[in-house]
């Protein structure tokens, strides 16, 4: 990228809150129901209906605010954002404008080994709109209001990011956080976590921001990076060829990998925000905040530091294991249940288990190998019942079936042989059968040692205790 230019990025992220019912009605928020079956009179905006705030949504917003060390507003207000659209039943969206529930906070991201603090301007509660469906309506538009009234937390960052990479790191960090807090399922395919990006460029060293474009509708980490990079290039090319960036909203087209203009500032709506007279201000006192604080789970950053310190893990393993609360819990349970060394547990989980899960496109909550069963295996490795190598074979069986590690070891006769007499007999036989290699080893070719280990293990179907084999072989070959 052209080094004369600096990029400035701010993100607006809409996280769908994981409440059972909608933010202002009792209808269910479950995804994927038949169109318009989860929209009650309130969601349909029928004449005379009134909104009633779902306390759970407030709870979740405050949890989020505390996790980003933000100011929680003691007094926040819902406002009406007025615009006409067929999937917006009331002709206004209930949102927050001047007095949002969550004020200034921050989130730390790590990019290329450097930690950077990204400011969060605010986070506010609002209701989602429905969906307009254009396919299969013969030139007409279908309206599905199931999603109307689903609670959203809109999280607005400061323009603190300087590259697409930082933007993605921030988005991932936020994604990880909301799932940690249990306030959003983070499902990006279903639109539970959506992102709009404000992008501008300015000559390096210039203080004022350039004119920004807002890119809407970027719903995967990959697309965020691509869309932002595309937009940066577009703006730089435009300026360098003598043009000027106009303030506008652009839509990212993933198929063509480009952004295109949706509407300019002049065409933008005047939303005529004003306080919603149907809803009372939200009052949050110290008692409520203390209650929430007490329930706040350990946050990813703190957990990662603790994993490194308490379990002696390297940075990479600790990062992976704390990338979701479920995975971190899984790890800690396995360590506890297996009594094995934490680093061995970490290696098994970040290695074999995650590889298998990735291959099967599953996450830890859907793992066929429960923490009890993995702990059962690791217990047998650490007490030398089986070798690590046999362990891989047992893991395969654990993945495929439902038996415990002990049952598999028993049924397949995989128990490690530590009987020195039996090992000694095999070693003697191998030495006798391979005089040439014995000669080579004794003349200083240490590499040949591996050949003997291999032969012994092969003869013993891998069940010999490798430590014992090494020790005895060394003695015999002297």
């Amino acid at each position, binding site marked *: 990228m052209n080094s004369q230019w600096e990029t400035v990025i701010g993100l607006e992220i809409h996280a769908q809150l994981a409440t059972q019912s909608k933010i202002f009605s009792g209808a269910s928020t479950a995804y994927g129901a038949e169109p318009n079956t989860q929209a009650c009179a309130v969601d349909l905006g*029928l*004449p*005379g209906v009134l909104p009633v*705030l779902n306390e759970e949504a407030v709870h979740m917003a405050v949890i989020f605010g505390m996790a980003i060390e933000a100011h929680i507003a003691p007094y926040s207000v819902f406002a009406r954002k*007025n615009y*006409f659209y067929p999937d917006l039943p009331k002709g206004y969206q209930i949102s927050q404008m001047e007095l949002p529930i969550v004020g200034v906070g921050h989130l730390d991201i790590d990019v290329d080994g450097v930690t950077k603090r990204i400011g969060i301007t605010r986070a506010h509660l609002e209701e989602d709109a429905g969906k307009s469906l254009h396919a299969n309506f013969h030139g007409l538009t279908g309206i599905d209001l199931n999603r109307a009234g689903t609670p959203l937390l809109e999280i607005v960052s400061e323009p603190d990011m300087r590259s697409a990479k930082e933007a993605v790191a921030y988005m991932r960090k936020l994604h990880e956080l909301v799932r940690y807090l249990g306030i959003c399922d983070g499902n990006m395919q279903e639109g539970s976590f959506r992102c709009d990006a404000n992008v501008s460029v300015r000559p390096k060293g210039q203080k004022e921001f350039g004119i920004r474009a807002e890119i809407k509708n970027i719903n995967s980490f990959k697309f965020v990076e691509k869309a932002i990079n595309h937009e940066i290039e577009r703006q730089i090319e435009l300026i360098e060829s003598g043009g000027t960036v106009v303030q506008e909203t652009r839509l990212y087209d993933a198929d063509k990998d480009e952004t295109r203009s949706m509407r300019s500032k002049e065409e933008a709506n005047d939303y005529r925000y004003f306080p919603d007279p149907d*809803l009372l201000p939200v009052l949050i006192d110290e008692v409520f905040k203390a209650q929430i604080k007490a329930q706040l789970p350990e946050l990813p950053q703190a957990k990662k530091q603790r994993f490194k310190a308490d379990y002696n893990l390297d940075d990479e393993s600790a990062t992976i294991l704390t990338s979701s609360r479920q995975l971190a819990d899984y790890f800690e349970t396995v360590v506890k249940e297996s009594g094995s060394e934490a680093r061995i547990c970490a290696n098994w989980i970040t290695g074999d288990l995650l590889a298998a899960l990735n291959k099967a496109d599953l996450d830890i909550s859907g793992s066929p190998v429960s923490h009890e069963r993995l702990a059962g295996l690791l217990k047998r490795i650490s007490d030398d019942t089986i070798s690590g190598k046999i362990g891989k074979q047992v893991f395969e069986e654990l993945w495929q079936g439902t038996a415990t590690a002990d049952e598999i070891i028993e049924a397949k006769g995989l128990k490690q042989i530590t009987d020195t007499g039996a090992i000694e007999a095999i070693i003697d036989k191998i030495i006798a059968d391979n005089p040439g290699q014995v000669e080579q080893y004794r003349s200083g070719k240490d590499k040949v040692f591996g050949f003997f280990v291999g032969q012994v293990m092969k003869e013993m179907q891998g069940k010999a205790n490798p430590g014992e084999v090494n020790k005895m072989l060394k003695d015999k070959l002297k």
Partner: protein
Amino acid sequence: MYNKTITELAQGLRSGEFSSVELTAAFLDRIKQHSGLNAYISVTEDLALQQAKAADARLANGDAELLTGIPIAQKDIFCTEGVKTTCGSLMLDNFIAPYNATVVEKFNHAGAVMLGKLNMDEFAMGSSNETSYYGAVKNPWNTNTVPGGSSGGTAAAVAARLAVCATGTDTGGSIRQPAALCGITGLKPTYGRVSRYGMIAYASSLDQGGPMTRSAEDAAIMLQTMAGFDDKDSTSVDTPVPDYSAGLNNRLDGLKIGLPKEFFGEGLNSEVAATLETAIDEYRKLGATVTEISMPTLKLAIPAYYVIAPAECSANLSRFDGVRFGYRCENPADLSDLYTRSRGEGFGKEVKRRILMGTYALSAGYYDAYYIKAQKIRRLISEDFKKALSEVDVIMGPVTPSTAFGIGEKIGNPIEMYLSDIYTIAINLAGVPAMSIPAGFAQGLPVGLQIIGNYFAEDRLLNIAHQYQQVTDWHQQAPAGF
């Protein structure tokens, strides 16, 4: 039978003097006979007789309440399940509500019989009932004059004995002004006392439903059923509902009445003023002391109201877009055409005027000058009321500057029409309760006395009104021919 109070009718139903079915049928006949008043938009005859039958069964079983079997009517702003709910507009001419307003639910629960839905100014915007898509309502005292509005159908129906009592709603005077012009008793409760759920919103922070009856005694009974916290309305207040009938007979000795000098100045018709003076003298005789007070912010009420109410209505009425329910234009060419024509054709002139005013007031660059300023004025007005009501028990004054004006007289002049609510609007901005009671006649037409009380002092207002009605008979007078 038509002149009986709710309590008398309840006794008649229990003594077997008449059944609810007979009573209901009699009222249905009267409604037909006087259909020229245009008080009703819908008469729900079958439903009424069905409800009357059920009420008779309850009465026979001995589990009836005071309102069981009593024929009432609902302003057509309250959603009634399975019944057309128009709000006086072409926009909702085809709208059958799929649910009941909380107020309707409460009357159903009490076993009241609903005769039908009453005419009103379109979306409750108007002071003469002339903005109704269903045509003007005639004042039974003089059918060339308006009944007031927006609850004009209710006021005319109750005055003409086409229902025992009925509901109204009041955003800037819409219960009190028609009650005054039709010579009946109307009570606008404290904001938050009666649930707004299912009451089609005009200006949400001002709208309040209330009873319109022939007497304070009946109003107490009706309000008893209507009032109370509703978890479907966040602005309804969770404070206990007192027994409104219990204190009706309390004496008024030592009652402190304040008369704001701003209410008795220029603009008040002299005959109306004289009538009110006589009424206030009556209170002196009942033991009250009367002092003049000053509420300097009252004069700001109309401009503040005509920013706040239109601003709220401009958003409240956005849902009428031709997409999901209500009026839709023929063959829309595209989305913009669908919106523009459905709303352009479905709404009447006054509604469109207020939507435009509100949209303007909320627009970027004007918001602070209009909306924020109006809210500041509103707070000042509230303070003025709180201060006054800490010095006196109640405030009294006119309800309207004059008696009922002629049909067609003011409809072409919105400002003059708006000024007919000059004495009522401030009360909505402050959120306090107020009543209008019949206090005599001027030029042969009824004059209303307004009684304004402190927050949640409905019981006190009803007591003060009832005591007056014990020593006067203005409330018992019926228009000639009814």
